């Protein structure tokens, strides 16, 4: 990993997880990998933070999980978005756009 990668911006991890899961059910590493790749290595996800976020979001009803058998005869945990999670993603995306456009205006002024 590039040395210039940083943790995701504080407060955005949940939104990025929701976004990843809006495409398809995924496991933890898949989500971390996607965030790193799509951000072109700018963001790196801390696995502890990721797993804590899963627990928090599952209890909030934003995501669901199920155990599935994996190819090497173990079980893997896969997460998927709930309807509530889908609504939350819309709301958080809107709020994020509102904030970033405000920052952009401030920087251009």
């Amino acid at each position, binding site marked *: 990993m590039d040395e210039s990668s940083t943790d995701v911006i504080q407060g955005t991890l949940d939104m990025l997880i929701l976004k990843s899961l809006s495409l398809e059910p995924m496991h*933890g*590493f*898949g989500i*971390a990998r996607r965030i790193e790749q799509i951000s072109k290595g700018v963001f790196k996800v801390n696995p502890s933070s990721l797993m804590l976020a899963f*627990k928090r979001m599952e*209890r909030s009803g934003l995501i669901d999980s199920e155990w599935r058998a994996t190819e090497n005869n173990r*079980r893997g*945990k896969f997460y998927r978005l709930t309807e509530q999670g889908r609504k939350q993603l819309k709301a958080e995306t809107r709020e994020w756009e509102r904030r970033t456009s405000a920052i952009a205006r401030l920087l251009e002024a």
Partner: protein
Amino acid sequence: MSLLRTITSGLRTLFRKEEVERELDDEVAQYVEAATKAHMRAGLSRAAAERAARIDIGGVETTKENVRSSGWDATVETRPFGASSFTVPESSRDYCSRGGRFGTHSSNENFTPIYYKRILFLAHFNAGVRAVDIRDPLNPREVAFYVPAVTDKTDKRCVGTGADEKCKVAIQTNNVEVDDRGYIYIVDRANTGLHILELTGAARSIARF
């Protein structure tokens, strides 16, 4: 609560703890395995990829500990969940036939570094005050108790009316408080008064004096 229910709830807590631990093991193993495969696809040997994956995750045990340490909190206010439960077995001193109320009434509300995250005190009516080791919140354990003796000042407690009325004189420990010297103060709602206590022996060594 009957002894059987106490045992059943204890087993459930234990069972849940093992299940949570197993799920954590599996999820971390799954993460390491997936990261290993990604490193192998990038050209590393299996052994080198496994090492790199463990570095990625920041240490398998560290990650588990981070997740574990917040496993029983209730950071989602709308969805609190029970981590474990504690009560005094009724049968330990036939509390249900001793008169007065039996059960938890209150806990110490004063935070002191001596007891914080270590020992919780519960006022338990006719079972006096109970000291509970809460260092492992998934497995609270009673480490000491004190049931004051009744005195000539202690009031009777009655049930029923008229000819059916039955009264017994019983301790009714109502509230408990602690201070930063480690003293424990209990008061009785049946006029027995105030007792000032301190821990001794093994229970005392749990506190941070």
